[in-house]
């Protein structure tokens, strides 16, 4: 077992030295630090330095996720087939390194290098903590889930590089997977919701006769009119909210504990995003009674009292662990597939590929 782990360690070391830790990576890290620094400064100026730690922190985490998901496919998407093209894969395969060590080592190296962004943003996270209004639980959960998301992208990238023969194609495929999860889920959610419509039965009960007190204006001896029926259609998003559960940005937001202001509004970007997704869980009422007669009797003009953001958030089902669980299964399955495609002695070779 120790020997097995040492082999993985050798592979990680090789991978970090050979492929990942290049000039491009440091340039990206520099660009990233500059960007996050600018955002921190602007946010600090905009808030006047008060109680904006939650917003700043959630923005930084989304930045890391954005850059991590943009860079990791490039670092991991040709890990195996790129080495095959360079003629160095087979020289590793003839050693005592096993295929599983090779695949896992490459995956861990790609993951570690994407986590570099998280490490580089620690100073700004400290600033966010100093700005206040940021709970330790939020930091812990979002950092762990962020790391898991970057790991998922790294696993998909390395796996595709083992499954697909051509490096360019596997890198592109990894980007497509990232795009499908980050943007595609939003598009699918929006389009499906827009084309799914339900008819709402609206019955309006008006006032037929009433006498009004001349001084107070209060109604008395009300006679309600018979209900008037009408229908209109609404878009239905509630059957599709689970699509958003696969979105990395949603997963991070949903996993972080909700943070709300005293009057029930969201207090950081995570809560805002999560609130939006959780609101989509509520099915619209399909028969609505608009009882103006009763309202008039109660002297109440506004008949209903809509739930606050906090109440909506708390009444809905959290979905982040479903998304994370599905991604975990996908990542493990993909790595397994890559392992079986990279195994030696090879029985079947993909068309146009060579062993060494």
């Amino acid at each position, binding site marked *: 077992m120790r020997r097995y782990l040492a082999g993985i360690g050798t592979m990680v070391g090789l991978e970090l030295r050979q492929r990942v830790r290049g000039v491009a990576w440091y340039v990206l890290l520099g660009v990233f630090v500059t960007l996050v620094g600018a955002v921190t400064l602007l946010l600090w100026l905009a808030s006047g330095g008060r109680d904006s730690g939650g917003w700043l922190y959630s923005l930084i985490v989304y930045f890391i996720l954005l850059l991590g998901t943009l860079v990791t496919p490039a670092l991991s998407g040709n890990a195996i087939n790129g*080495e095959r093209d360079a003629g160095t894969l087979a020289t590793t395969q003839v050693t005592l390194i096993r295929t599983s060590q090779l695949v896992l080592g490459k995956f861990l190296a790609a993951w570690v290098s994407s986590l570099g962004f998280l490490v580089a943003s620690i100073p700004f996270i400290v600033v966010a903590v100093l700005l206040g209004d940021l709970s330790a639980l939020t930091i812990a959960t979002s950092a762990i889930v962020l790391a898991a998301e970057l790991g998922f992208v790294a696993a998909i990238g390395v796996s595709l590089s083992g499954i697909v023969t051509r490096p360019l194609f596997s890198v592109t495929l990894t980007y497509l997977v990232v795009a499908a999860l980050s943007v595609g889920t939003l598009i699918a959610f929006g389009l499906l919701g827009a084309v799914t419509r339900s008819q709402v039965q609206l019955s309006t009960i008006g006032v037929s006769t009433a006498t009004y007190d001349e001084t107070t204006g209060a109604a008395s001896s009300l006679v309600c009119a018979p209900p008037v029926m009408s229908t209109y259609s609404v878009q239905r998003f509630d059957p599709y909210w689970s699509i958003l559960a696969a979105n990395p940005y949603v997963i991070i937001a949903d996993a972080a504990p909700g943070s709300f202001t005293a009057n029930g509004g969201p207090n950081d970007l995570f809560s805002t995003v999560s609130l939006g997704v959780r609101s989509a869980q509520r099915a619209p009422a399909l028969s609505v009674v608009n009882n103006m007669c009763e309202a008039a009797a109660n002297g109440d003009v506004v008949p209903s009292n809509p739930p606050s953001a906090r109440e909506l958030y708390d009444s809905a089902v959290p979905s982040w662990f479903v998304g994370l669980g599905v991604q975990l299964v996908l990542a493990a399955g993909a790595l397994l597939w890559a392992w079986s495609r990279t195994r030696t002695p090879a029985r079947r070779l993909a068309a146009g590929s060579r062993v060494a």
Partner: protein
Amino acid sequence: MSDGIRVTGLQRSFGGIHALHDATFEAHPGSITALVGPNGAGKTTLMLTLATLLAPDAGEIRVAGFDPVTEAAQVRMRMGWMPDILGSWAALSVRTTLEITARMYHLGRRAAGERADELIDLVALGPHAEQPTRVLSRGQKQRLSLARALVHDPSVLLLDEPASGLDPAARIRLRLLLKKLAFDGKTILISSHVLSELDEVADAAVYLDEGRTATAEAVALAKERLRTWRIRAVNEDRLAATLAASEELAGRISTDNLGTLVAVAGEREAAALLTGLVAEGVEITSFAPAVGDLEHTFLDLSGGGA
């Protein structure tokens, strides 16, 4: 349990293309065996199956006594492979490359460092030890690749085109190194297109054509066929006149820029011819086979004629 390499009835196809039809041969410890064949004969496929990278469709293989398919780890412990493609980790230095390769064979950190130093000396890459491998010349990469194959002191060496790109001095060093390794009891299988080069080191040969190894009888027969000898003399005209006078040699004489060529069957006839020429008073300066043993046999087997 016999060491070395034993291959019986090896077959391998890719899609509809049969790379290996029926390869059968043995390579013994202490011997350098040449693997000879034209492009596309299946040499690299054969090397890859021996190197535990490719599973055969049929046939039996033993490398250092183990089956590369079912006992790959055992074979890998004892086998060093130098690929025909010179891949190297471009960003890593020569020393780091060898250290990491040693670590891949479970050597400890310190042992790996020591082994790297030994190998750098062995293949004379000292001045380039700290350079990234991407700046190495082709010949230097070739030597690095050989060093990598030797990291774990294997008893069986599979060398695919080891001398291509080497300058004459490096070629001589490689030849000496291979002879020393064979003397130490290692089994060496070496493939090359440059047959004259193999002639200098190999003491046994496997001829591979269209996925089939030539049988021992076919090889023996080929060696007896007419073979061209090159003759040079102080007075070329005198030599030409003397040869032309012989009825026996009619139609077997040609000339090229290097001298006169005569086709002769077997060494006995060559000796007789030399004796005859000297007796006629021709001042011979050079009398040798125009092509090496391997090339002669190879050309004959592949129907090229000699």
